[in-house]
């Protein structure tokens, strides 16, 4: 037996010993890993298709435009990285645009509105869009997505209602709600 063979023989014996005495491992965090991987896969898919798909490219432009508007209006507000299927992003984009228009109007033209209301609304909008997109990523079921969207709309309305000095701006909220409801109906 050569020296190398002797070494390999000893390694094999010690490996058999290690297999016998190695204690079991803790369970891997599989669910959390799968979830993070799914987000990464969506992002990678979007990035790959953004260069070839004109719809996605337009959405990327829309996202950049909205983001720039938010930056200008409220330096501390961030729309953040939004992910999800293209139609969810379209809904989020339209909803974001509607709320931005409403917030700008409220901030600039209503004499009783504090100037900080606009940025605060954008921060809430940011949270809402992020939560919506995260919810959507957790499920591929369109019905569930729409139900989730409606729930989010309700909570957004409630949140905006509380912060918009009682019900003085109820009509703006109703308009926004109607607009989004129509959009949901159109999407089926």
């Amino acid at each position, binding site marked *: 037996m050569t020296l*190398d063979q002797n*070494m*390999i023989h*000893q*390694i094999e014996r*010690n*490996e058999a*010993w*290690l*297999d016998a*005495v*190695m*204690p079991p*491992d*803790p*369970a*891997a*965090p*599989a669910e*959390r*890993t*799968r979830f*993070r*991987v*799914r987000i*990464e*896969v*969506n992002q*990678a*898919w979007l990035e*790959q298709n953004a260069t070839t798909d004109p719809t996605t490219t337009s959405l990327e432009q829309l996202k950049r435009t909205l983001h720039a508007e938010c930056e200008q209006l409220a330096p501390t507000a961030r729309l953040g990285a939004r992910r999800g299927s293209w139609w969810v992003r379209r809904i989020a984009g339209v909803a974001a645009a509607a709320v931005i228009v409403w917030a700008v109007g409220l901030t600039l033209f209503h004499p009783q509105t504090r100037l900080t209301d606009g940025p605060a609304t954008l921060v809430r909008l940011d949270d809402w869009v992020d939560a919506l997109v995260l919810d959507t990523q957790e499920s591929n079921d369109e019905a569930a997505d729409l139900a989730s969207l409606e729930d989010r709309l309700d909570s957004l309305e409630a949140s905006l209602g509380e912060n918009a000095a009682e019900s003085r701006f109820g009509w703006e909220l109703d308009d926004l709600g109607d607009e989004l409801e129509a959009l949901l109906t159109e999407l089926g």
Partner: protein
Amino acid sequence: MGTVIQSEVVGELKPEPLAAIIERAQRFDPGAFDELVDMFGQRVFGFLHRMVGNREDAEDLLQEVFLRVVRTLPRYTHQGRFEGWIFRIAANLARDRIRRARRSPTIISMSGEQGDPDGRANWDCADPSHISPDQPAIQREQVDHMQAALGQLSAAEREVITLRHYSALSFAEIAEAMETPLGTALARAHRGLAKLRRIMESAP
């Protein structure tokens, strides 16, 4: 282990070949990545846990491994060596983490000692987080003891031993992954295993 697909023969199930899962993953099919996590996640996690010595870092690194798989898989060419590829990513990330901990050993291990220059920084000897209180005391002792014994090896010895234990890689593949000559990998395994056995068997 692995996924199954419906065979052409009604009622008979057979494993979907890894190559087919990889091909689906390369088209960004999220289901394919779930299957890869199921197939390799536990073993990669075991390897990382033994390498870095604490559960939190191992969990963090496990996610990093699969995120890197997502990013680099489109450029991967499958030639039947996927396991070596994924463990190589895991080994590189674990090595980086150990190196970083060595450069800034600000975290003190549970034993109260700071990291040493041989890759034993942040070694969480006790790490009892995953041991159920219901487990027999002897088993808890065994887990603590193995963690502590592995912590006394050099990072390179630990890497070759744990890679062999958790993956199905040959010494030649491990040497390639560690970018060392085959003789060096064998010597590290020989020396490390002998040391590990001596430590374990000399314990009261």
